[in-house]
């Protein structure tokens, strides 16, 4: 594992842990806040619910209390009357109370000791019989019971008002919890006369506390004034358990009600929710961990894919370089040849492609080819390599392009399992004679640049690799000095701009007008395409081959002779001068002199007008008007005026004579008039001679 990978591995682990921790902390904080708020809300809710339960219970109790109190109170006036007027009917007071109030279990009217002269103690007690149907009575005025010492008797007299006794167990009857409400009775002189009571069973309190059911687990109790538990329902809290206690007082009775809730019960909901939330959070975190793991894994996978892609791109680049190295790239390709100026270029698309060209000279013949493999990418490039090798091999011992192509087709067809084909053009130019033999296998017809630009006539042969055994027909054309061939692949004509317009043959042919060096032609064409295409991506290889033949003269001279800046062009001047001589009837001696003058002027241009290695076109023209011959020598080289050179001194001795300066001297000597002008970037030397 590389250092870089280890580093990024650590980084991923670290960032993953960090991410999980941040998530965990945020989840925790959220839970805490939620918990605190929920606790408070639950507390408030519990308080409200308890309060409302307590209120309900109190009003239930108060109903009974009020009924009991009013039953006693309503008996006071009659008790007073009985005490003052008819002691015999004392019993009727408690009897009435019990009779009229179903809630009252028993009642008594107990006389204050000493109030009555007849008897010191008197307290008839009326109570419901066991079956609940009738009433029974007994006297409480026994020495055993000693009612004047009882709380229910003492307290109301002491307080001077109604009093609820501490609850007690009824020993006699039902053995259930009782309480007694007692009121003092004062006589007309405001002396305490008696106490009237009503006993009520507290058994109904059980149903009251049972009805306080706000939580399943709660302890509801009612305690008396003295702290005695009158009734309770529910489960007592466990020892040491935190509880919430809500309580309320019941007026007059001195009872207090309370609801005791264990906190765990109140918060049971939130605990449940909390457990659920925590559970989900843990699940979420685990999922986060898993997701991060997966993400990291896939990231690693992508990184690997990236690396793979990089490597593949690197390999493709190498493939492209190898491919480019297979086509000759040197320029000028044949610096030693004065009869040929050629250049070739391939502008590969981003991918490796299937364009190819090749050329070489063998036995004074230029073998050249251009081709385009169908499709793109590696398959095309492989076929391209095979095609190029096949061309080299088969052209090594063969001079007929037809037979070369035929053999190539047979070998390519034989191993063509993938239906790939190659459009191909092959030519063999005899540089000595200018005879061009060529064969086209479905490739775009090259252009022949002679007096005009024309399509090279080609036969409709099949591309290579389509059908083995196809009989390829060869064609022939005679080239003369200054004729040129332009070969290209459809990457040129089908180059598209952003509007999806194609460069097309019209624009291509426009770019071929005029004559410059082969290399300059290609540069011009590439710039035209570049300008046309603009920002649009190059989708296909663009390959061009420019062959400028500078060999054999056609022998058909006219008033204009085209030459280029090569000293080996000088011998061509003789043939043209012979044409001038016969055309204008110039004698041999004069013609030789004129030839000399023009050669000197021409040599000057060839040697000095153009930078070394660049192609320069030179035009020589002759005209005649009333026996005056006018020679015009035009070139597009650097501005130079030969007429400005000083006269050579021909009288000097051998040692003093310089090597140079003779040429322009001879021009001046031979010609009648010599003038120079610079016009439109051209040097124009005009030489006149009357014949």
């Amino acid at each position, binding site marked *: 594992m590389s250092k870089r990978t280890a580093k990024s591995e650590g980084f991923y682990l670290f960032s993953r842990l960090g991410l999980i921790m941040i998530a965990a902390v945020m989840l925790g904080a959220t839970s805490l806040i939620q918990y605190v708020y929920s606790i408070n809300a639950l507390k408030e809710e519990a308080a409200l619910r308890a309060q409302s339960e307590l209120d309900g219970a109190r009003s239930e109790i108060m109903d009974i209390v009020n009924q009991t109190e009013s039953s006693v109170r309503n008996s006071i006036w009659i008790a007073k009357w009985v005490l003052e007027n008819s002691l015999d009917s004392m019993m009727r007071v408690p009897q009435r109370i019990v009779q009229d109030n179903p809630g009252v279990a028993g009642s008594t009217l107990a006389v204050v000791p000493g109030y009555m002269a007849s008897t010191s103690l008197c307290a008839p007690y009326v109570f419901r019989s066991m079956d609940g149907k009738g009433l029974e009575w007994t006297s409480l005025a026994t020495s055993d019971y000693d009612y004047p010492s009882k709380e229910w008797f003492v307290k109301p007299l002491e307080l001077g008002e109604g009093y609820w006794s501490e609850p007690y167990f009824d020993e006699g009857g039902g053995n259930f919890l009782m309480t007694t409400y007692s009121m003092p009775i004062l006589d007309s002189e405001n002396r305490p006369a008696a106490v009237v009571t009503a006993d009520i069973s507290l058994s109904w309190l059980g149903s009251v506390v049972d009805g306080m059911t706000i939580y399943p687990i709660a302890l509801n109790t009612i305690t008396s004034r003295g702290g005695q538990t009158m009734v309770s329902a529910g489960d007592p809290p466990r020892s040491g358990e935190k509880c919430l206690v809500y309580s309320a007082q019941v007026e007059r009775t001195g009872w207090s009600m309370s609801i005791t809730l264990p906190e765990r019960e109140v918060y049971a909901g939130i605990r449940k929710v909390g457990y659920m939330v925590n559970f989900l959070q843990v699940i979420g975190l685990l999922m986060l961990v898993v997701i991060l793991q997966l993400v990291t894994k896939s990231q690693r996978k992508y990184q690997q894919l990236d690396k793979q892609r990089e490597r593949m791109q690197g390999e493709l680049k190498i493939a492209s370089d190898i491919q480019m190295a297979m086509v000759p790239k040197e320029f000028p390709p044949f610096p030693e040849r004065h009869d040929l100026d050629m250049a070739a270029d391939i502008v590969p698309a981003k991918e490796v492609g299937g364009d190819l060209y090749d050329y070489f000279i063998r036995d004074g013949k230029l073998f050249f080819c251009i081709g385009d493999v169908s499709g793109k990418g590696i398959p095309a490039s492989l076929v391209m390599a095979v095609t190029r090798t096949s061309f080299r091999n088969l052209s090594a011992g063969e001079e007929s392009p037809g037979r070369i192509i035929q053999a190539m087709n047979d070998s390519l067809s034989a191993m063509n399992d993938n239906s790939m084909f190659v459009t191909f053009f092959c030519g063999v130019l005899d540089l000595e004679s200018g005879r061009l033999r060529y064969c086209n296998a479905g490739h775009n017809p090259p252009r022949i640049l002679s007096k005009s630009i024309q399509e090279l006539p080609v036969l409709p042969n099949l591309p290579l690799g389509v059908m083995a055994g196809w009989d390829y027909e060869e064609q022939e054309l005679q080239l003369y000095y200054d004729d040129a061939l332009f070969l290209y692949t459809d990457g040129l004509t089908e180059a598209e701009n952003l509007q999806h317009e194609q460069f097309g043959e019209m624009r291509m042919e426009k770019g071929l007008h005029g004559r410059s060096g082969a290399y300059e032609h290609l540069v011009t064409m590439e710039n035209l395409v570049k300008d046309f295409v603009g920002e649009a991506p190059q989708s296909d290889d663009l390959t061009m081959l420019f062959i400028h033949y500078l060999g054999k003269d056609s022998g058909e001279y006219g008033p204009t002779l085209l030459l280029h800046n090569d000293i080996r062009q000088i011998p061509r001047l003789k043939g043209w001068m012979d044409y001038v001589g016969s055309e204008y009837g110039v004698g041999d001696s004069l013609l030789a002199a004129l030839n000399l003058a023009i050669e000197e002027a021409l*040599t000057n241009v060839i040697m000095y007008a153009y930078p070394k290695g660049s192609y320069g076109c030179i035009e020589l023209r002759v005209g005649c008007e009333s026996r005056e011959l006018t020679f015009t020598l035009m070139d597009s080289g650097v501005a130079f005026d030969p007429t400005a050179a000083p006269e050579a001194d021909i009288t000097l001795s*051998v040692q003093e004579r310089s090597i140079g300066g003779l*040429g322009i001297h*001879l021009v001046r000597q031979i010609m009648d008039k010599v003038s120079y002008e610079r016009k439109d970037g051209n040097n124009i030397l005009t030489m006149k001679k009357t014949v």
Partner: protein
Amino acid sequence: MNITIEKENNVTTAILEGRLDTLASQEVASEMEKLNQAADGTVVLDCKDLTYISSSGLRLFLSLRKAAVSKGGNIIIRNMSADIRQVFLMTGFLNLFQIEG
């Protein structure tokens, strides 16, 4: 352009045939070098079949002449045609060489 060089005793004879134009002047550079080396003696340039000469050719002649001057040799030009003689005249070369025939 063709140059045939013959050596007999102290006399080197070069027979020049054809057109000595600018290109030919470059092509015969090695033959002219041989003549330059022989310029300590007598060098005869037979121009009977020399049909044309340009300033480049004249320069070769001048170089040979200069070599002869510095080495104490002698250059003789023979059988010049009228046209060649005319060029020699125009350039003042007639005065620089010993012309015979």
